[in-house]
């Protein structure tokens, strides 16, 4: 009797240990994951951008960037309240409303600043999205899954930077169908869209389109790598971020 109980408890302990280990052992031995990231792709802990507004400040220069971005991503050309924009420009008081003073250098006050999604570290759009259509990737990019977007526009209300656009109509009606980029999808009616930091280009080892088109005025890199070009500029130059009081920790920095 005594012996039996002892044997039972021993056996039970072994079985419990086995149960704890088994799922992991089976997972690691059996199923191989059929997917992996492109080895040529670029990786970071948190992608960030520094825009040198001393080098890039006229409306035409910024329109050129917007053009290259919008072409690559098949963004429809619309004006007025229904406009769809990934990259656009505005003046100082609209860009940095909390950081204005009445005697600001005139040149800085009237300069145009390129604006885009800030890919915040604490994105409010992600917090409010009811379907998780907008989400933060491990590399810090705030991405959108258009398949899941139900067009509720909570994210637009939550974004302090107005970086999101809603497709009120069929976007294809306002696209030059003969000159579409066949490698990138268009969007459908009723979804919100925005800049994606060129996720699809980073995945194959290319820099974002606007960074390439800016000819050195925009620096792109990992915010958490002290050796990255972004951190080098941040160490050397004075920079501002948009609406810091919103607490979203934007990752687009402006050299003033």
């Amino acid at each position, binding site marked *: 009797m005594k012996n039996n109980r002892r044997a039972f408890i021993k056996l039970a302990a072994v079985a419990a240990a086995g149960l704890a280990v088994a799922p992991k052992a089976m997972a690691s031995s059996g199923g*191989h994951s*059929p*997917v*992996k*990231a*492109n*080895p040529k*792709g670029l990786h970071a802990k948190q992608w960030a951008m520094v825009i040198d507004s001393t080098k890039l400040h006229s409306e035409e220069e910024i329109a050129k960037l917007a053009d290259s971005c919008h072409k690559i991503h098949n963004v429809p050309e619309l004006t007025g309240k229904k406009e769809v924009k990934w990259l656009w420009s505005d003046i100082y008081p609209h860009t940095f409303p909390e950081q204005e003073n009445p005697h600001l250098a005139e040149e800085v006050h009237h300069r145009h600043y390129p604006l885009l999604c800030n890919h915040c570290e604490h994105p409010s759009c992600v917090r409010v999205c009811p379907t998780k259509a907008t*989400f933060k*990737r*491990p*590399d810090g990019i705030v*991405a959108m*899954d*258009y*398949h899941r977007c139900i067009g509720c526009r909570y994210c637009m209300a939550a974004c302090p930077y107005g970086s999101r656009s809603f497709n009120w109509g069929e976007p*294809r009606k306002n696209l030059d*169908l*003969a000159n*579409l980029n*066949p*490698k*990138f*999808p*268009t*969007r*459908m009616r009723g979804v919100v869209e925005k800049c994606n930091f060129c*996720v699809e280009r980073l*995945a194959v080892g290319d820099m974002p389109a606007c960074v390439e088109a800016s000819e050195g005025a925009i620096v792109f890199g990992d915010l958490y790598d002290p050796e990255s070009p972004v951190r080098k500029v941040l160490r050397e130059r004075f920079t501002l971020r948009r609406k810091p009081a919103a607490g979203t920790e934007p990752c687009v920095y402006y050299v003033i």
Partner: protein
Amino acid sequence: MHYGFPIIAGLVIFIGLLCAPFALGTGKTYKQPEVKLPAGEKECIESVEFMREQHMVLLDQWRDWALRDGKRIYTNHNGKEFVISLQNTCMKCHTNKAEFCDKCHTDAGVSPYCWDCHTQPEGLK
């Protein structure tokens, strides 16, 4: 019986209509749609049976892997690697949406909304 004739007549018409599809369909055999397979390529990313039964599941997994997990290389059961992309991988071989996708989808009465966003290989008009 009050109104006996109209009731019986109505019932006969009703049952006739109810059975009409079965009556009209007997004797006919179902013919699978003939899809146009890619000319240059012999093998798809997985076996024919797998693609026939599971392509929708695979595409669903693909979109999550690529978009949400950032993993854009798929290794098939034979160890061959493919870039995960409906528009840039699948449609590079299946260059005719009308002759390949649509035929079966129309036959099965399903209308996937892939093409609301993705560009078909023929381009948009």
